[in-house]
Structure formats: C-alpha cells, structure tokens
C-alpha cells in the first residue's frame, strides 16, 4: 500500500459526504446504496464514521461528470479513466468524481459503481495506489465477482496505519495476496499456456515467461472474468491449443482469453464417475497424448485423441508414483520429468526411470 506525499489524512474521524448529482445508468436508490456500501468498506476497519448530508459543503463531495468537468483533470470518454479522487484536505480535498461516459452498474456489466467508489474513497481517505494486484487500491479495474466483497489485507494494513483499527470489523479474515517465496507456499494448479507457465494460487496466478526470472502476479478474473475466483486443476493440450481449467464438477476450455463455446461442461462428460466431486491436478503428457488426472489417492488416464478415458483406471497414485504421497495439489511436465506438488514440497519424477529423482521446495519454482 502507499500514501500520498506528506501522508495526508483527515484529522477527524467523523466525515460527511454529499452526492451532488446522479448517473442515468442506475436508479438513485442504487447509486445511494453503492456509495453507502463503499463507505462501509472503510468504516468497518477504522474508527471513521461517514454521514450523508444533502446540502452545504461536505468533506467528500461526490459527482458525476464527463471530459473537462471543472478540475483540470479531464475524463476521456468511455473506458480508460473511470474516476478519480483527491487526497484529504479542504475544498477539493477528499472529493470523488466519476466519469459519466462509463456504463455504471451494480453487477458485472460495464463498471461496478460500488467497486470503483470503494477504491476512490480510499484515495479520499489518504491511500495512494497499491502495487499489490490483489489490493482494492490497485489502479486497474477488475470485477472481483458477485460474492460478498471483503477488503483485502493490504488495504486494511494501509488504512489502519493512517487511522488505526475500528472495534467492529465484521469480516476479520481479510484475503492476503500470496507471497511466491513463502516457504510454506502450496499451489492450486500449474499449466503451460503457449510457452508461458501459469501457477495458480487462490484468486491469483503467476505468469512465468521462460526468459524471465521475475514472475508477474495477476488476478485470475482480470484474464477470465467468467471463471471462479479459485481453481482446482489446469492443463494445456498444445495440439488443440486449449487450456482446460477445473473447479468442483465443472471444466472450462480456454483458447487464450476466450472460453470455448458450450463450456463449462461437467467433468463426468469426460468419463469420470458422476459422484466425482473435483479434480486435484492434471497434466498432459505430450509424447503419449495422454492426460493424467489426480483425485484423492487415485489417478486416471485420458486419451485426448480418442476423447475417452483409458480402461483400467482409476489406479492408486502410490502404485505408479511411489513416494509422492497420497495427494497431489498440482502437476506439470517439463522435458522428461513430471513435477508433483504436495503442500510445500515438489517431487521431480523421471518418466523414463519411473521414480522420484529429487525433492524440492514448492517455491523453488520461482527461483526462491
């Protein structure tokens, strides 16, 4: 998280706000509700209180405008700049302006007014942009889904450094952004995608370019808004140029950014038993054209060419991959090796000699 220069903040905890005008995209009551909910995001975790006034000058004056709207920081038409706000202070200080050339919504269409307002009010209270891609104060808009919004930990740390903690946090478990060098790092899924490696953890994935050491951390929904916030397994079929992602009983096929028509499907349509609840890990073996699926202590083999589950499965993981434990979080293939992830460890398995040749830390994937 970051602060404005001179760590600008309000010297009082009781602040007022006034809604000066409305967008025509939403009913007034929906706008009122979005702003009220956005202020509650911050009052829940600090001693701050927000009171709406309907006349006179409030600390935080909220308005909708387009292009040049009176503060010499013009908006730019649809998309691009969505809104801006001023750090705490007199006059313009704390004010928030929303670009009315945007399509404002209370769901995933256009731009969600509540999410943008919660971000802008963070500025009105003294937070600058955060570099944490999971933070509300990250500068780029991502619709984080319709399930209840919980302020990320990075934002809580920042605002509480300015105003201290409140005494009524209804959601004390604030989502943290994973650290790639955390010695206890465990993973949800790993897949290749057109030569890059994608490493999934919670609502994020790291993009690992073959030539780069630094992994780029990205919100899953910033790439694939329709996907859930966390996945169980993923693999790439390079022949079809498709990546398959699994969550619970569902599977999505992705061609780059696009979800293939007719997906998501149910995993039993691939030949898994109907009672199968989820897949833990998956990997496509280029040489054999088979894809291995791991669930619990068993694994299946799927023939991509024939699009059918191979006979004689499931088998026990321990029978073929002795020593990797009876659970797999994620798996990927690199050259003649399979890398099985189980909690903070990864097992390097030689396909050729059919045995484990090395045990590594999971975070060694990121050169930690």
């Amino acid at each position, binding site marked *: 998280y970051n602060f404005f220069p001179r760590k600008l903040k309000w010297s009082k905890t009781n602040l007022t706000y006034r809604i000066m005008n409305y967008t025509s995209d939403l009913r007034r009551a929906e706008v009122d509700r979005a702003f009220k909910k956005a202020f509650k995001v911050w009052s829940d975790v600090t001693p701050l209180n927000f009171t709406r006034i309907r006349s006179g000058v409030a600390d935080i004056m909220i308005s909708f405008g387009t292009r040049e709207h009176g503060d010499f920081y013009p908006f730019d038409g649809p998309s691009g700049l*969505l809104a*801006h*706000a001023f750090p705490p202070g007199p006059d313009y200080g704390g004010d928030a302006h929303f670009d009315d050339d945007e399509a404002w919504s209370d769901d995933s269409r256009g731009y969600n007014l509540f999410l943008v307002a919660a971000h*802008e009010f963070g*500025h009105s209270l003294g937070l600058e*942009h955060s570099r944490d891609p999971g933070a509300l104060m990250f*500068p780029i*808009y991502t619709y984080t889904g319709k399930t209840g919004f919980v302020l990320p930990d990075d934002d809580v740390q920042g605002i509480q450094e300015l105003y201290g903690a409140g005494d009524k946090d209804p959601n004390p478990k604030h989502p943290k952004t994973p650290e790639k060098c955390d010695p206890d790092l465990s993973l949800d899924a790993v897949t290749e995608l057109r030569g890059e490696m994608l490493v999934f953890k919670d609502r994020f994935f790291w993009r690992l370019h073959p030539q780069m050491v630094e992994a*780029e951390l990205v919100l899953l929904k910033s790439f694939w808004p329709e996907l859930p916030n966390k996945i169980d397994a993923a693999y790439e079929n390079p022949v079809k140029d498709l990546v398959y992602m699994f969550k619970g009983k569902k599977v999505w096929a992705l061609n780059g950014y696009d979800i293939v028509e007719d997906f998501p499907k149910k995993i039993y349509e691939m030949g898994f038993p109907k009672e199968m609840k989820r897949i833990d890990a998956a990997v496509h073996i280029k040489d054999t054209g088979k894809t291995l699926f791991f669930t619990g202590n068993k694994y299946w083999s799927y023939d991509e060419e024939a699009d059918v589950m191979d006979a004689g499965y499931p088998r026990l993981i321990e029978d073929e991959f002795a020593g990797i434990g009876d659970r797999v979080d994620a798996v990927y293939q690199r050259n003649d090796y399979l890398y099985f992830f189980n909690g903070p460890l990864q097992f390097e398995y030689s396909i050729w000699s059919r045995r484990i040749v090395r045990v590594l830390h999971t975070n060694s994937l990121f050169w930690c």
Partner: protein
Amino acid sequence: IPIPLEDSHEFTEKDLQFAERYLRTHYDLRPNPAGVMKKSVNTMASKLREMQEFFGLEVTGKLDDETYELMRKPRCGVPDVGE
C-alpha cells in the same frame, strides 16, 4: 514522439500519443520544450521504467506490447506516483 521502442514494434502514431498521455497522467511525465528531444527520450524511458516496475512488468524502459496492453486497461485516474 520520443518514446523508446522495440525495433519490431507495430505501434501507430495514435498509439504513441496515447502512451505519452498515459505517462503524463499517471507518471508525472512533464511536457518538454520543443527541441530538447534527447533529454525527453531519457525522461520517457525513465517514466516507462517507473510504470513497468510499478506493475511488475519486465523493466525495459521501452514501449512493448505488454506495457501498452496494460496502458489500455480501464483504471483510476489518480497518478501512480508522486505529487
């Protein structure tokens, strides 16, 4: 427009103007008096590096596809750095 580019770039004049405006809005790029082209290239490169570093991109100081694609994403109008 003095923006350092990869040789293989395919940016149009309009793209470059967009990128310059983006750096001015969010990274406090100062418009240079005409004729001071050399210095402004360095300024542009340093602002591009600041942005790439902020977003965890590969820090090259050059406008590449990844950097430009990120510039196009909808965002807040408040600068990412400085006053």
